[in-house]
């Protein structure tokens, strides 16, 4: 039984202000657990979580795994390499087979947008989206929002600028959905070829001038730029990208007040973000990583925490 009005966390597109607030408030309590000498509680004892990763991922998988272990869940990792997928099994069969081994929660990452939604229709388990292609990465946006809320006290009225490749970013889309729901303003900044033509309909502002964006935002969330986008002709060179869209200390000095800097990682230091900015006093990049564990604990607890425990079954 979920403590949210949702069985799954597939994305933030359908999470309300109340839902997001509940997750963030719960994450604050989870964060306290992470500060204790013994960083472990029995909340998810007897709950089995499978981390089903069809795409390589280090930090998200480790973050989920830590969150699961802190809550005393039993965890199993499944990664695409060396799995039945290489034998040509379908996604659905893979998931049904794992579910038949009696599990409660599937945390999944997959390259296809909507694949967690697809599985959620056919599995009994709780599904948590850990990134589906260029669609959503809801726990990343939740940890970004938790980090911003810690810094500013509230999300309402904040002006957040997302910088970089919006078109291919699940982090950007989940942030847009979540931040807009929470009443923040969202400014997208990047080359025209990396901003979807119709994203304006999601209630965001668009600019192609980072210096101008810096003058009117409270925080910048800098997205990773991938070399393959250059190779497919979407921007001319990393050099030009760095010159016009790279976040440097010099650029930030123009801001009226210091801007908070986020990055979902992994960073291309010296490309989208200069090292002295990434490591600077207004960077909250490592706080994001810590908050990631807390947010994932909160999500797992809220969605699976009321699963029948062994004791309940006996009584």
């Amino acid at each position, binding site marked *: 039984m979920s403590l949210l009005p949702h069985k799954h966390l597939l994305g933030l597109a359908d999470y309300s202000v109340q839902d997001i607030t509940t997750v963030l408030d719960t994450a604050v309590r989870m964060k306290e657990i992470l500060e204790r000498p013994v960083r472990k509680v029995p909340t998810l004892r007897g709950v089995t979580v499978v981390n089903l990763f069809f795409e390589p991922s280090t930090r998200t998988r480790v973050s989920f795994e830590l969150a699961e272990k802190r809550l005393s869940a039993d965890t199993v990792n499944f990664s695409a390499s060396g799995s039945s997928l290489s034998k040509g099994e379908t*996604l659905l069969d893979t998931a049904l087979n794992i579910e038949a081994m009696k599990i409660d929660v599937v945390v999944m990452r997959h390259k296809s947008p*909507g694949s967690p939604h697809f599985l959620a229709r056919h599995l009994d388990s709780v599904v948590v989206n850990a990134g589906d*292609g260029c669609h959503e990465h809801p726990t990343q946006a939740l940890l970004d929002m938790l980090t911003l809320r810690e810094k500013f006290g509230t999300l309402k009225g904040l002006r957040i600028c997302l910088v970089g490749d919006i078109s291919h970013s699940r982090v950007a*889309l989940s942030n847009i959905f979540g931040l807009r729901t929470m009443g923040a303003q969202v400014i997208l900044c990047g080359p025209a070829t990396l901003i979807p*033509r119709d994203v304006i*309909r999601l209630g965001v502002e668009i600019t192609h001038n980072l210096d101008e964006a810096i003058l009117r935002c409270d925080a910048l969330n800098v997205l990773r730029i991938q070399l393959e986008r250059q190779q497919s002709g979407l921007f001319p060179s990393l050099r030009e990208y760095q010159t016009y869209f790279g976040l440097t200390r010099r650029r930030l000095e123009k801001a009226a007040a210091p801007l908070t800097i986020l990055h979902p990682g992994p960073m291309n230091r010296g490309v989208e973000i200069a090292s002295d900015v990434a490591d600077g006093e207004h960077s909250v990049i490592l706080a994001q990583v810590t908050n990631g564990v807390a947010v994932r604990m909160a999500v797992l607890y809220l969605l699976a925490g009321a699963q029948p425990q062994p004791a309940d079954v006996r009584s």
Partner: protein
Amino acid sequence: MPRSYSDFESPAPARNLLLEGARVVDPRSGLDQVVNLYVRDGVLTVDPREMPASADHLDLRGHVITPGWFDLHVHFREPGHEVAETVESGCQAAMNGGFTGVACMPNTEPPLDDAGRVQWVLDKASASPVELHVIAAATRNRAGQELVEMSELYDVGVRAFSDDGAPIRSTAVLRHAMEYAHMLGARVFQHAEDTTLSAEGVMNEGEWSTRLGLPGVPSVSESIDVMRCILMTQYTGAAIHICHVSTNDSVEWIRWAKQHGLPVTAEVCTHHLLLTDEACKDFDTDFKMSPPLRSEQDRAACANALIDGTIDVLCTDHAPHSWEAKMQEFDVAPFGVVGLETALGLAFTHLIPNGLSLPALLERVVYAPRRVLSQPPPRIATGEPANLTLIDPQTTWSVDPSKFRSRSHNSPFKGWELRGRTRGIVNRGLAVITDF
């Protein structure tokens, strides 16, 4: 009513069949009245003076009889993907949908690009009440480089050539295909798409593709190719038929071409008239097809173009895919939806009440498709071969794909409540008439 008329596997000969009390509508013959039709050995008598006592009487009061409907764009998957559809199952789906004729696209495996293979498919349907035409590939192996042997294909009955499923990309090859076909009195059907623009796209580029994180197929990827085809028609004088028009801008170019008297024809699919890209929001692959469901503006433009005649033909682009193929991730699953068995009900439920008169509808599903294929129009008149679609316009029913005669169930209209249903067809001396 003998049971044998409802057997899809072996349709009964229409030897001595009296169709009583239906409203008979044949705009080309100026006919729209309640009148009895008598079919003897496949030949019609309108309003027979004497009722043959021995005839099989079929009470069709409250029904509508029209000349046989024709679907200009279907995929029957044989050879190659018989698990999804065969010529036989496709013809049964056509009968169940009220179509007495279909034109099959050649993107089978291997493709229908030579006379032997085309004849093999034609032979499979030779005993069916459904008159099957083959649109042959325009280029060998649909590779877009060398022309198929068009004259020889013409001689086995082919009147149209298409690499459908994909466009003819090279403008030079397009020109040569159009000119060579034109020499024969045939025409090229172009699946209009600039594939460098559509690239990896799997749904319409717009707000919904953005929301869903799915790669988009921009509407301009179609419109720009429609424009290219029209300019080539203008330059060469050779006719072109634009397949499955789905965008407002395509419609505008076609309108321009017609205003300039160019030999351009076009078709639209039922699903592009009734659905928009928002339907993809649950990642259900039964809403994935090419071209994709578009915006409301595009949908409305196509619907208006069908009404005002800018678009000549209403078709289904019946594209069966197995359950296994469609039960995949949205970006991986194949493009295409079935349509033969829902088109008539959808037309009666949603097109006629929204501005498309019955005579105009019949123009788009009876006469125009055959005209594009250089076939004579069927007529409801004494002495003519009986080529009829029997319709119960009042019956309401729920679309249940598991009841389709098609081997595939990938319908975006599953669960829709429709009013108006095929009662049967009569064609080529045979009849299939269902009891609900």
